[in-house]
């Protein structure tokens, strides 16, 4: 079964390069779009109305206003009803694996099912591309396919008197793109995991594949759904799977804590998404993409009503993105997510799930336009997106420089890369962002899987200071070469696929006429240099130098995460201490070289990473970019002015200048890494030690190593006060409300009774006296009423 998937996968790559040429020639209309995309103002003017007005706004209110939106109504086509099997195939695997987990099946069957069903989905994704792609590219009309009723209410005939959120599919460029790479990567990684997880055959093997299958199902729901609530279903579904897989090693307190953290951070984002959905529904009366986009495209910036309730939508969406894609204030869950098995890190926390945020931004791009929220808010929203991405990219990169756990380096690099993507959307190039998602998915999956292979082989050793010279260790050569490729791509080496995509983002930013966006671009450039440094810092340490292998604590992979305190100790102790011990430790340990399946997947991913650059390389000859064509036929492109009308950078031609600058910066980072971590490691270690000893500079290595203490900060300002507040509340509830107030009310009657108790003395006279007193009181009262004239 798995071979089917591999063949399907291979065919995708063999064919896509050849397939698009005839496809393109079949689509004359595409030329218009392309021209538009490339900034040909004349064609854009011919296409649209109210260009002047748009330009007028353009000059005053920045880049948010890009003229009229390009909306094409979706076409419903039930011929594609088979698409549901794309979801149902992994769902079958969910059920089978779940059953096997329940009945404690101890075999490779779960992996087989998973890979097979993923392969099936992949094949269907490819089939969809061939069946529907040409139509889409020709007509620009997305495809909608009804699937099943889910949530739908109607309580009146009016436009705002129904709520429909059924499960249905909305297939346009970006959903198709996501479907393609998600299924392909999922198949490959499941194949990898089938070997990687073998040490767990008797424990959680089935459970692992259950969760992975559920993840793919959810992810596909997320990208295929034709409405926001369906997206939300997938959104939370992937969150759940992420939770289950991060906490996969459930006996490790750290893993469960990390899982909880991830879920809660994601929940904060989900809250944003949920509220955004409410706002969207209350403003537009629908949550179906098609009618939503129609409504937005139909309004003009002057007609925007709704005040804050519309303006809040993009920001709430951004909150959701921050949660899922580990951006901005919510990034801290992703590094901890590395507690999960490495294939999970590769699949979920690098290649696919975390890009759901980018998908959301791209999908919801129309909400970042003047038509949706008016000029001021549109610009603010876009700039916010840009800055969040930009800062996350930068911060992630700086933290990655201080990590010694190579898996965590890659985790921070993911945060940084995701920051780039978000920034791409923010600076106005959905294409750049999405393209980077695509390339990043390949090479980051590759990087994680190589990291996983190393961990797998080194008994879970994740500290690169305890390893070295792996390039020369038998069996690890392929791994190291693949990792080198990944690092090159991560560092955006010139001409790499990553560079091709990242440069589009930087180019757009740097050529923007909005000052702030240009700053973002420069920060992005700087970040690229840092990225090159830390990427090669890892590789040089791992691959070069003398062979040094200190195996991890665990007999099988991934269990060996030191807790943070332990980690810090190593860092403080300096690298010198380790040099001596290294050889001794490596003595009796035999690294476990990756087997066939892992090697195969690594190779395929490496090829994929390289080929991911193809669309860009071929764009020059073909006249269009394969990825761009997906983006252009999606809601992300409704903002037609995503145009990369590349002006000039520093007064020179944008393309060449950026190339020179970027190359210089990357090479600088590379060289720095070379000097400090390959050529003269002692120098690197000394530099670090001296920085640690210098009061003024201490914060740099320490802060970087500890993620700038963001976790601690959150804990101090939110976690601890909230916990204390909750304790106080619980105390109040139990001992004040229940213990004092309720008890007081409950005892009150008894208390009053005690007041009267002395009257019951037991002697006849006293009773008679009290009775007589009572009579006297009554009579007195009556007399008083009479005297006050009350009786009549």
């Amino acid at each position, binding site marked *: 079964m798995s071979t089917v998937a591999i063949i399907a996968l291979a065919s995708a790559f063999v064919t896509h390069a050849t397939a698009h040429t005839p496809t393109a020639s079949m689509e004359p209309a595409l030329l218009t779009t392309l021209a538009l995309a490339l900034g040909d103002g004349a064609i854009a003017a011919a296409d649209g109305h109210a260009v002047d007005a748009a330009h007028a706004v353009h000059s005053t209110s920045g880049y948010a206003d890009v003229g009229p939106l390009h909306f094409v109504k979706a076409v419903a086509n039930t011929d594609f009803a088979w698409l549901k099997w794309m979801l149902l195939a992994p769902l079958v695997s969910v059920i089978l694996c779940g059953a096997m987990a*329940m009945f404690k099946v101890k075999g490779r069957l779960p992996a087989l099912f998973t890979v097979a069903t993923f392969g099936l989905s992949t094949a269907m994704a490819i089939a969809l591309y061939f069946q529907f792609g040409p139509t889409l590219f020709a007509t620009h009309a997305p495809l909608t396919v009804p699937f*099943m009723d*889910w949530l739908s209410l109607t309580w009146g005939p009016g436009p705002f008197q129904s709520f429909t959120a059924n499960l249905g599919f909305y297939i346009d460029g970006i959903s198709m793109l996501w479907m393609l790479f998600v299924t392909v990567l999922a198949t490959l990684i499941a194949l990898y995991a089938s070997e990687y997880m073998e040490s767990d055959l008797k424990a959680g093997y089935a459970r692992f594949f259950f969760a992975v299958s559920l993840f793919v199902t959810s992810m596909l729901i997320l990208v295929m759904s034709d409405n926001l609530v369906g997206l939300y279903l997938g959104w939370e579904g992937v969150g759940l799977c992420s939770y289950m897989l991060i906490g996969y090693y*459930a006996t490790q307190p750290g893993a469960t804590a990390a*899982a909880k953290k991830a879920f809660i951070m994601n*929940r904060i984002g989900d809250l944003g998404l949920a509220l955004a959905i*409410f706002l969207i529904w209350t403003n537009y009366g629908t949550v179906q993409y098609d009618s939503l986009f129609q409504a937005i495209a*139909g309004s*003009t910036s002057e007609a925007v009503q709704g005040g804050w309730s519309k303006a809040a939508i993009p920001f709430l969406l951004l909150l959701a993105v921050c949660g899922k894609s580990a951006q901005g204030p919510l990034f801290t869950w992703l590094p901890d997510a590395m507690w999960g098995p490495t294939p999970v890190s590769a699949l979920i926390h690098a290649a696919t799930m975390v890009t759901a945020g980018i998908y959301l931004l791209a999908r919801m791009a129309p909400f970042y336009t003047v038509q949706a929220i008016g000029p001021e808010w549109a610009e603010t929203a876009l700039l916010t997106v840009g800055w969040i991405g930009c800062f996350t990219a930068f911060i992630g990169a700086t933290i990655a420089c201080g990590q010694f756990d190579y898996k965590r380096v890659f985790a921070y690099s993911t945060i940084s890369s995701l920051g780039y993507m978000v920034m791409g959307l923010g600076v106005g190039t959905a294409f750049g962002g999405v393209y980077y998602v695509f390339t990043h998915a390949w090479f980051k999956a590759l990087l994680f899987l190589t990291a996983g292979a190393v961990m797998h082989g080194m008994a879970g050793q994740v500290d690169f200071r305890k390893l070295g010279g792996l390039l020369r260790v038998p069996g690890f050569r392929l791994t190291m070469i693949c990792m080198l490729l990944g690092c090159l791509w991560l560092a955006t080496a010139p001409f790499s696929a990553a560079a091709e995509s990242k440069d589009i983002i930087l180019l757009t930013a740097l050529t923007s006429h909005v000052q702030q966006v240009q700053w973002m671009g420069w920060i992005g450039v700087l970040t690229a240099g840092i990225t090159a440094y830390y990427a090669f810092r890892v590789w040089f340490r791992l691959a070069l130098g003398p062979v040094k292998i200190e195996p991890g604590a665990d007999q099988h992979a991934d269990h060996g995460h030191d807790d943070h305190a332990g980690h810090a100790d190593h860092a403080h102790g300096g690298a010198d201490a380790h040099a001596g011990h290294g050889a001794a430790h490596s003595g009796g340990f035999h690294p476990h070289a990756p087997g066939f399946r892992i090697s195969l997947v690594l190779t395929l991913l490496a090829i994929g990473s390289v080929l991911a650059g193809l669309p860009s390389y071929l764009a020059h000859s073909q006249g269009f970019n394969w990825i761009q064509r997906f983006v252009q036929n999606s809601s992300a492109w409704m903002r037609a002015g995503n145009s990369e009308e590349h002006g000039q950078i520093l007064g020179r031609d944008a393309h060449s200048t950026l190339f020179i600058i970027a190359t210089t910066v990357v090479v600088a980072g590379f060289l720095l890494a070379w000097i400090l971590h390959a050529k003269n490691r002692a120098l690197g270690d000394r530099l670090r030690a001296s920085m640690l000893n210098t009061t003024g500079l201490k914060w740099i290595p320490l802060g970087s190593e500890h993620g700038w203490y963001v976790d601690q900060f959150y804990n101090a300002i939110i976690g601890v006060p909230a916990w204390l507040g909750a304790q106080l509340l619980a105390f109040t509830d139990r001992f004040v409300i229940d213990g004092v107030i309720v008890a007081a009310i409950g005892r009150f009657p008894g208390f009053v009774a005690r007041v009267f108790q002395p009257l019951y003395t037991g002697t006849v006279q006293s009773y008679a006296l009290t009775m007589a007193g009572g009579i006297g009181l009554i009579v007195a009262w009556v007399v008083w009423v009479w005297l006050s004239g009350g009786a009549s």
Partner: protein
Amino acid sequence: MTLAVLLIVLPLIGAVLCLGVSERAAKTVGLIASLVVLAAATLLAFEFPAWTTGTFWPNEEGWKLFTAFGVEFRLGTDAVGMLLIILTAVLIPCSMLVSFSAITQRQRGFYAQFLFMESAVMLAFLARDVILFYIGYEFTLVPLFLIVAIWGGQDRRPAAIKLWVYSFVGSVISLVGFIYLAAGHATDTGTPINFSVQTLVEYGQTLPASTQWWVFLAIMGGFAVKVPFVPVHSWLPLAHGEAPTAGSVVLAGVVIKIGQYGALRFAFPMAPEGALALAPFFAALALIGILGMSLVCWVQNDVKRLVAYSSIAHMGLALLAMFAFNVVGMEGGILYMVNHGLSTAGMFMCIGIMYERYHTKDMEVVGGLMQRMPVWSVFMVFFAMASLALPGLNGFVSEFLCLMGIYTADAGMKTGFPGILGPTYAFLAALALILGALYVLRMLQKFVFGPLREPSHGHGGHAHGGHDSPGAHGHGNHAAHAIQDVNFREILAMAPLAIACIVIGVWPKPILNVIEPCAANAVAPYVKLIERDLANPPRATADESATKTTAAPAADKGAIQ
């Protein structure tokens, strides 16, 4: 009618049989009786013609048993009632199944109490007369008290007494409201007293706003104890904490639903103006419940108390949604009743199964049970996720609708039925999404995941000897023999709930279709009132929004063309 009466009488017969047979046979007899009731309920469900009409059935002229008191034995229910009847009929056998090994003493009484309770609950859900409802509502208290007090945990007596007094006072306050209304009707129209729901609803709506205010306060105030709302909730954690598993299941799954059902069926329709006027007050209480109790959950170590507190938060959300007075919110609130009944009952079952093995509910003492009881863990995680409102499971549908209902319940909005809450309430209520995750995940982290922690010999022995509950300590010291994972019987008890959770989550369409007319009926009086308020705007923006409602979509369409 016959079936409806059977639904009430069969459990009674079963209860008497239970009391009559030998101690050993009691569980079998009880289970069979409850299954027979389930069969009857199923038959009734099939025969029920009003699933999608929102009307009441059979609702025929009843027996003239209590007509001198204005009470007619008239049975009938709508789709919401039917759902709750089915829920009850399912939960009772499940809760019995889960007690088979947990309850080892006074079994006859135990199973009989459940059947007594079932009968009363059925009566409450079937009654078309306020007093008839009250009979069922109030009578649940006796078996519930006995269940908690006899078969409960260490502090069962204070818990049971608190449950008793709280509930009694609450329901008497509701009764005062009903009687006030019925007496008003009798004196105003010069007719003999009449407690028919229909009559009182019609009469209540004609009352001046100030009178309705009091009526609503009384009726809702009473139900608020049962739901429970925040300042009067303190009986629930205690009762849940001490009740035997099956007791908790039924308490959470059925009994507190009667409170919400009462609010829906009586409080809201009988005094709409009062409800509108008091909505901010009750909404504030609900919000305090949602947020405060979620936080309290976060720091609980007693897992049953945790779930109990979460119940308060959840029911707060359900009621808050009802107070939105629009169809979406009402529908969400109603669905929430069912869903909460399923997921919380499931959680209590899981906890009970665990308790039976370890005799502790302290998360600090026991944890990491995934290694010991993997299948149990699956159920635990599943129900926890359902209560977390994870999409694809039942909780999501209702919670989403609730939040949406609350959110859109702003007179200034363009949605179908503006209510009276609005975004601020929704934002605050939606924080429950995060807080819910906080405490549920903390519970899972400690309880299911992490390194295995089990009470030591000494502790187990202590937990054993420390209380003299006849129900709780049937087994020998657990440390002596290995802890077993859930057995088939326990899976059988939990599986129906789990399946229902999934079905409602994935395919909510049927249940929503069923609830919708009822929700629309419940909202109908409010629509009129809100429209009236909009027509005579107390707020300046009302006019503006009214025009916008009609104009904006048209403008949109024009622009597209």
